[in-house]
């Protein structure tokens, strides 16, 4: 068990910078998820921690020691790969014990560790099988078992669930969380799936174009995104971004969304945004769950407007409605019994207490 620290870590491939100076502190026992679109540098970062990629600049520390030039086998890490990477000619037990056998552990201890890991992962019955006799989910368990038996300082997961079908993915996600609760090993987990990131992580690191956009707990990222990228990446369906501007009307600050729609800001928001130049091009960031059907008793700060729905998507527990606001496509979530229909007019309510205001040019959440 150990903490991991990255100090201004850079990875250059010829003239392309894949990772551009990352600073990250991962506490002992912590479960950190690196998330971002493909090509954002998250896998490269993980592979640099593993020692599979040289770092071009900066320092990586595991347990306080700089490991820049330490080969992977001496970093005391274990890694689970997207495509499992099981040794096809070895049984499950041999796969799991390979690392221990290379280090000449006593046979009794190897057996004990393998048995314990197999029990933890519920693969005791499969111990004598070859990988090709296993299903995808079972292979992924074996890959995790191979990591657990080593009892390493750090677990590294490289998109371990991407090859599984949707149902199994949810199941294995819970499995990984359970395993972490039991073994408490410091974990760095890479995924492009924001749901996985939100559900697994103690803290999520959102990466984009080789840089860290924001680090925070899942709730922080969801409710207090720092940039447009984070706001749009975390949450599904994604946050709406509606062009708007601020205007003063009779001493109150108003948010104008279109020629015909303008709402007074709730007092708390008005105070926060009052200093902004009125000429700035702004974006209203609003999650779909804050755009609902209108009803009789609306809380203060919730404003209604009429629109015509383009498309509706009944999801069962809710219905997603899509419509245009001055040409900007917008998504809302309404009650399945609210009577939303394709092409029908509907009165919707916008909860401005949960709004975000972004600078359109810089993408910074204000």
């Amino acid at each position, binding site marked *: 068990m150990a903490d991991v620290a990255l100090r201004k870590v850079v990875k250059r491939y010829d003239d392309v910078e894949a990772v551009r100076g990352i600073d990250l502190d991962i506490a002992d026992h912590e479960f950190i998820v690196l998330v971002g679109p493909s090509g954002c540098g998250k896998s490269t970062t993980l592979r640099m921690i593993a020692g599979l990629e040289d770092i071009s600049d900066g320092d990586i520390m595991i347990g306080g020691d700089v490991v820049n030039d330490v080969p992977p086998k001496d970093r005391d890490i274990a890694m689970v790969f997207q495509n499992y*990477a099981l040794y096809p000619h070895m049984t499950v037990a041999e796969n799991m014990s390979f690392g221990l056998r290379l280090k000449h552990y006593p046979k009794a201890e190897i057996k004990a560790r393998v048995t314990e890991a197999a029990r933890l992962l519920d693969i005791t019955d499969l111990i004598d099988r070859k990988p090709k006799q296993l299903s995808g989910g079972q292979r992924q368990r074996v890959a995790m078992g191979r990591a657990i038996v080593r009892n390493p300082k750090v677990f590294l997961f490289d998109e371990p669930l991407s090859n599984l079908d949707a149902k199994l993915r949810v199941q294995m996600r819970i499995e990984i969380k359970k395993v972490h609760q039991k073994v408490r090993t410091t974990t760095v987990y890479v995924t492009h799936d924001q749901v996985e990131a939100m559900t697994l992580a103690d803290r999520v690191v959102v990466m984009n174009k080789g840089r860290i956009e924001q680090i925070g707990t899942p709730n922080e990222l969801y409710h207090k995104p720092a940039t447009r990228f984070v706001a749009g990446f975390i949450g599904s369906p994604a946050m709406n971004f509606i062009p708007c501007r601020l205007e003063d009307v009779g001493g109150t600050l108003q948010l104008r969304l279109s020629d015909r729609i303008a709402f007074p800001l709730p007092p708390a928001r008005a105070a926060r945004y009052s200093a902004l130049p009125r000429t700035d091009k702004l974006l209203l960031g609003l999650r779909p769950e804050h755009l609902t059907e209108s009803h009789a008793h609306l809380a203060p700060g919730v404003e209604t407007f009429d629109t015509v729905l383009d498309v509706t998507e009944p999801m069962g527990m809710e219905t997603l409605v899509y419509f245009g606001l001055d040409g900007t496509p917008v998504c809302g979530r309404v009650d399945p019994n609210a009577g939303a229909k394709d092409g029908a007019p509907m009165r919707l309510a916008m909860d401005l207490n949960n709004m975000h205001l972004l600078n359109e040019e810089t993408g910074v959440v204000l």
Partner: protein
Amino acid sequence: MSTMAIDKAGPRRKVKYGSMSRDRAWALRWSYFFLVLFAIFFLTPPLYMVITSLKSSAEISAATNPWWVFHPTLSNYVELLTSNQFLRFFWNSSIVSLVVVIVTMLISVPAAFALARMKFWGSATLATGVFLTYLVPDSLLFIPLFKMLALVQDLTGITLLNRWYVLLFIYPTLTVPFCTWIMIGYFASIPKELDEAAIIDGASWLQTLTRIFIPVALPGLIAATIFAFTVSWAQFLYPLVFTTSIDQLVLPVGITTTLIKGDVFNWGQIMTGALLGAAPPLIIYAFLMDYYIAGLTAGATKG
């Protein structure tokens, strides 16, 4: 309206283009036609050899039907198998082929691993270069090779020419490039994550090669072994050039040198010798083909 048009067109299309199963049936018929054609083409010479080997010299030279044995005899087999000369050729061939296979594997497997996996400066060019050396025909190489070995012999005083063991130095120039090339292909098909997993598990390069790559690429290894053995066993030009004394000859050269005297061809024994000579590769093929099954990597990664 449009539905009616489709209904009308439906049956006609079927007749015109045929169904999938009809296409498949025709494909099968053509496959069988050509397979049978090739089988006849390639199996006729060995059959002729078997027939001739069972005839006495008198029957071979008599004007009877060459495709039938009227007085079958094993005398050719008995004579060859009791002749020290023939057994000597057989022994020389065996020892040369065996050592060459071992030497080839010891060189080309690590070389292929290095070229396929340990990305170093110039490794791609080197891999192509290895293959290019295989493309130079031995009929161009034997004179310079002869000169080189003669020079080595002069400089060191070690007798190399006209000794069977000189072939141990020469055959690998044929087998190593091609086997390396085959193995590069096999190693390249092993997923990168497999060696990364091994490296993280604490394996050195050598351990990754011996404990992961060789077992996983076993079909490729067997293909390369078969190739190296066949090339060494059947090589004719080099032993013809480099060895001349009867006791130093290998089988292909030995048979043609000793059984053809001037313009007298001992056809019965030549055919018998060729058949006996073809036996070891056949036996090795039969044994190793069982292991030569693709798909050993199944289960390593997402299937």
